[in-house]
């Protein structure tokens, strides 16, 4: 698998888009730090961008890479390689190079602004870790969609819809349900609903770690009690891990049965 990963990774490292993505984060990091001149505040602004943008890029890149490397995949399928090796290798190549762009693009400006001397380092690390998780989750979901849809336009459409649903529509439905059922105790429900969406989960996790949960009122207190603790952090990371493993597992299973 490492060989396929290596080739996919090199292939992406040579593509223009990896650099565009890297430069975008680099520019974003510098601009935010220049405007805020405060690491902690920049981390909060950055979170809002990352939470929405990272899944979108992961989804689009994943689908695009999968369809574009169709010929490469067919070439590999005739070689003495396991199918899961081919697809997982490509997947980790894409997700890995995206994560690298994210880490380097944001890491460089923050380090230059004295990240290691500030107390924002933990929050910043958490931000990068959730960013990495989101990249792996959404790239895996995108690969699944592309594998199940021969038609590129359809596959692309479903992938974008999935992102739209998890990033925007899910929150709307969530809020709506809170209003409709406001008579009932909803702490447990909202906790569960947050867990079911990797974007929401990441957002809540970072918000509460950033200690601005006081803004969220009673629900904020419940959430803080849960996510704010080490146990909550652990559970959240486990759920994120679960979100990552599930689509990867499906990818390995589905790829075994597909005709090329």
């Amino acid at each position, binding site marked *: 698998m490492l060989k396929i990963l290596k080739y996919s990774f090199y292939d992406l490292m040579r593509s223009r888009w990896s650099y565009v993505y890297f430069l975008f984060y680099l520019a974003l990091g510098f601009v935010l730090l220049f405007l805020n001149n405060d690491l902690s505040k920049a981390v909060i602004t950055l979170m809002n961008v990352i939470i929405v943008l990272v899944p979108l890029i992961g989804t689009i890149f994943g689908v695009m890479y999968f369809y574009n490397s169709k010929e*490469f995949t067919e070439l590999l399928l005739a070689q003495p390689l396991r199918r899961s090796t081919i697809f997982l290798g490509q997947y980790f190549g894409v997700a890995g190079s995206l994560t690298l762009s994210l880490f380097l693009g944001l890491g460089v400006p923050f380090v230059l602004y004295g990240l290691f001397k500030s107390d924002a380092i933990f929050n910043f690390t958490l931000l990068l870790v959730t960013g990495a998780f989101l990249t792996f989750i959404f790239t895996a979901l995108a690969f699944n969609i592309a594998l199940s849809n021969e038609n590129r336009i359809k596959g692309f459409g479903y992938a974008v819809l999935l992102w739209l649903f998890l990033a925007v529509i899910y929150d709307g439905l969530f809020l709506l349900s809170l209003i409709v059922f406001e008579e009932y105790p909803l702490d447990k429900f909202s906790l569960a609903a947050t867990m079911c969406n990797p974007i929401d989960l990441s957002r809540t996790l970072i918000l509460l770690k950033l200690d601005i949960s006081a803004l969220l009122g009673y629900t904020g207190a419940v959430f803080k009690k849960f996510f704010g603790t080490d146990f909550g952090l652990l559970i959240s990371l486990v759920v994120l891990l679960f979100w990552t493993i599930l689509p990867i597992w499906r990818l390995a299973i589905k790829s075994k049965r597909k005709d090329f």
Partner: protein
Amino acid sequence: MIQIDNLHKRFGKNQVLSGVELTIKSGGIYAILGPNGSGKTTLIKSILGMVIPNTGTINVLDTNIKNGWRYRKEIDYLPQIANFPSNIRVGELIRMIKDLRQKPSEENKLITLFGLEPFLDKKLGTLSGGTKQKVNIVLTFMFNSPLMILDEPTTGLDPGSLIRLKKLIQEEKEKGKTLLITSHIMQFVEEVADEIVYLLEGKVYFKGSIEELKQKTDQVDVEHAIAAIAMQTTDA
């Protein structure tokens, strides 16, 4: 070498293979023929494990290929249309395939034979169809595997290269290899094939030598014999 029993494959509503029975003995050149859409490529891809059959078994070198992948070490495959990733260079592609297969290879001899040296640093996307096919041939013939599967090997080749390809095929046969070839060019088939497997409507309609085929259809040349089979079945 290859033993296929009761092979069925359906794509959606389209039944492509319906009960293929085929035994390929070791050594010699087998031409797989049949009209468009008769399931030639599907049959080949089933042997390679790229298409998963609905029912039936395939044994390659006495092992069932279901869920296997190691047996592909013993197969060199030339795909139908040289559809390569467009952004890598010819030399890189050759090195990559060598790296993946980890077998001794003799690509330099073939590169010289087909005059590909000036293209080694060119990206695959910029090559013409014929040049791509030459690269394809180098990638297939550079290893020494007992089974070779060539899907439309003559596509896009100029007469000089075609002669070189035929010579290569003969050389491989003399080494005692088994070759499966599909082609629509009957002159080529007549020149190289020892035996013909004719697929029709997802079944093996005829298997035997070229002479037998001519006798069976009362024709003097292969092209007419093959056409005669197609005519008979459309009349019937």
